[in-house]
């Protein structure tokens, strides 16, 4: 059976084999952390860990991309370091910056004495997420969130770091990673990422889950909801996603919000009135709300989801 083994970069630490589990065990661990998914998600995650390659996750907002990094950090019992990307993000904010205040204070405090302290040493460096992940004493999970929001130049800089896991600071040389971090990149597809970055990564596209899978997710996260209502809820969301051509399809996190909203109304079954009162939890675009109403609204949806497929009773 194949096993994940994390090696340290330095030879002498190679015996520090902390993690050692199989695909089945990884699946169990994900379930324990309430992340419900099939092999289509687990295999790429497992391969990224095995091949020690960054995992690039794409998909619509709210399908659980960032959650994978969080779950991985829990499964691997390690720290999660997050780099949130945005337009204009540069090396200073992502890698390191000199602590100018500290340097100035030191110079001013010692201007009358001869001092041999180098103000361009590690003591005066402010670590930003990338350097923090590289210098971490043990393996961490590095989440580079919404990479598509950055500029192409930053992307190129990032994949240089991701291929070597070392950084050159001109003032005192190269810093090499103690442990290769587990890197998870997420993208909402706002722009195409470069082929270079894609080539270095294991790719995972997360789509919307099947009705059965969504029922399982709702059960885990909103267990107080009745069995029949859970099925109706999952089928309603599937109807909205697949059958009426919405501009923004409801995501899994919105399904869970809807479940919470139904719980807040103490609902035990789906009714037209209830749907109309809570629909704005799922549809957040005026055009989509109009499309929903034009296609028959709550009445039509209820007709379509009732008495179709498996209905489980508590």
């Amino acid at each position, binding site marked *: 059976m194949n096993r994940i083994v994390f090696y340290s970069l330095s030879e002498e630490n190679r015996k520090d084999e902390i993690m050692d589990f199989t695909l089945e065990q990884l699946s169990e661990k994900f379930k324990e952390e309430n992340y419900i998914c099939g092999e*289509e998600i687990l295999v790429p995650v*497992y391969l990224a860990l*095995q091949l020690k390659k960054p995992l690039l996750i*794409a998909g619509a907002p709210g399908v659980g991309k960032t959650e994978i990094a969080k779950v991985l950090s829990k499964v691997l019992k390690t720290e999660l370091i997050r780099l949130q990307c945005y*337009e*204009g993000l540069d090396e200073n904010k992502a890698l390191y910056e000199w602590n100018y205040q500290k340097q100035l204070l030191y110079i001013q405090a010692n201007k009358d004495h001869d001092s041999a302290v180098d103000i361009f040493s590690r003591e005066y460096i402010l670590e930003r997420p990338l350097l923090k992940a590289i210098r971490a004493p043990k393996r961490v999970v590095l989440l580079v969130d919404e990479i598509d929001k950055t500029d192409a*130049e930053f992307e190129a800089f990032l994949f240089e770091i991701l291929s070597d896991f070392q950084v050159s600071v001109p003032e005192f040389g190269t810093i090499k990673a103690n442990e290769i971090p587990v890197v998870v990149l997420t993208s909402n597809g706002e722009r195409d990422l470069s082929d270079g970055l894609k080539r270095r990564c294991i790719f995972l596209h997360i789509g919307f889950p099947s009705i059965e899978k969504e029922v399982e997710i709702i059960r885990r996260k909103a267990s107080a909801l009745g069995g029949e209502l859970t099925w109706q809820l999952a089928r309603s969301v599937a109807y909205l996603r697949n059958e009426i051509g919405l*501009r923004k399809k409801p995501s899994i996190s919105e399904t869970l919000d809807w479940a919470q909203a139904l719980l807040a109304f103490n609902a035990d079954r789906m009714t037209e009135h209830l749907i109309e009162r809570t629909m704005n939890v799922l549809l957040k675009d005026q055009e989509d709300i109009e499309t929903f109403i034009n296609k028959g609204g709550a009445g039509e949806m209820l007709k379509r989801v009732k008495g179709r497929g498996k209905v489980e009773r508590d």
Partner: protein
Amino acid sequence: MINYLEDHVARFAQVLRSFGLPVGTSEMLDALEALKYIELMDKSQFRAALKATLVKDPVHDAFFENAFSAYFVDPDVRKEQVQGHQDHLAAREEVKKELEFQDTALDLNERYLDMYLQLPDMEQKRVKDFVSRTSEGKNVTSSFKPILEKVIKGALDYQKERRKELRLVPVEPVGEEEIDAVLHQITVGNKEKDLLYRNMEYIDESEYQEARVLIRKLTRRLASGISRRYQHSSKIKRVDLRRSIRAGIRYGGTLMDLKYKQKKMQKPEIVILCDISGSMLKYSQFTLLFMQALSESLPRINAFVFADNLEKIDFMGFSVEQMTQSQIWGEGTNINTALKNLMGNHYQVLRKVSVLIVLSDTKSLQGEEAAKKLKEIKRRVKEIVWLNPLPKADWSRYPTVSLFQKYCSMRECSSLAQLSKVLTKHFI
């Protein structure tokens, strides 16, 4: 017969490449490495491992799924595939003999031969009878052959428009029997479903809502690129003194943290001219829908439609249905009049910062006059981009194409994917 896993992965990668998926050697090596860590006998694990390493764009998911289920099959099914492909090739040869004009085969490429083969028997018989009657007609000389070829191609194109089953995904054979058989299987089993890559002319009315959603998605991507405020440049940076002094206040006035000037990006101004004469209507409808969605983040878009004359389009309350109510819809094309009208009545939109986009198949009256106007407009605007829905291979047949090409960059644009690609290239 090749059975090694490595060979199969390499051949499978070749199949994916034939459909345009960018699968390089490094992806293939990753795939082989990945296969060491999964249960090879578990098909879903095997599929997920190949997908994670070979496919890097969700748009290609459907191709991958089809290719996977056609490639990884039992030997018996593979034999059937090869046999099916051989039968198909034999049938093509047969068609060439069937459609002979005075004992010479008509010059029809494989695409047309396949289209003929997909027709129902009745239609095939009609085409065949027409060819033989023409061939045996009185006073019919060999000079009639090109005319007959044109008529047959036109008839097949017409059928393609009416019948979805004739719209096959174009794929290049690789010359290896087994792989070609797989490619054939995928092509026949997978009609052009994807709206993104489909010729806009063939998007049915029932699919309009789906197309609208797709256009929204594409424009959102494009708009986020266009709305970026700053452009990074490799030129020597200039220090922004004002911002540097302000940043230096933190350090007691010392300029520790230098700020640099960045070049501000200017949002482009777009003037778009869409041909709405008969065959061009659908292309114009979708292009204008695209522009309408884009106009939310790019307010300076001026849109016009033309056929024999020019009409301005207002994006507020614009709908595709509105275009068929236009006075000029369905008239013959005259680009010359449209350009003359644009220069005369709307000269203020033609500025040094604007890009003129013309969507037309170039089939127009007064081509030479129109080319002169284009030359003049080119001096006034930043750039002229011509979107031509005709296949690039056919451009040489139309003299107007080369006339207009002198003054603009002409791009083939018949699908939403191509439209999005052209606009991305020019504006981001």
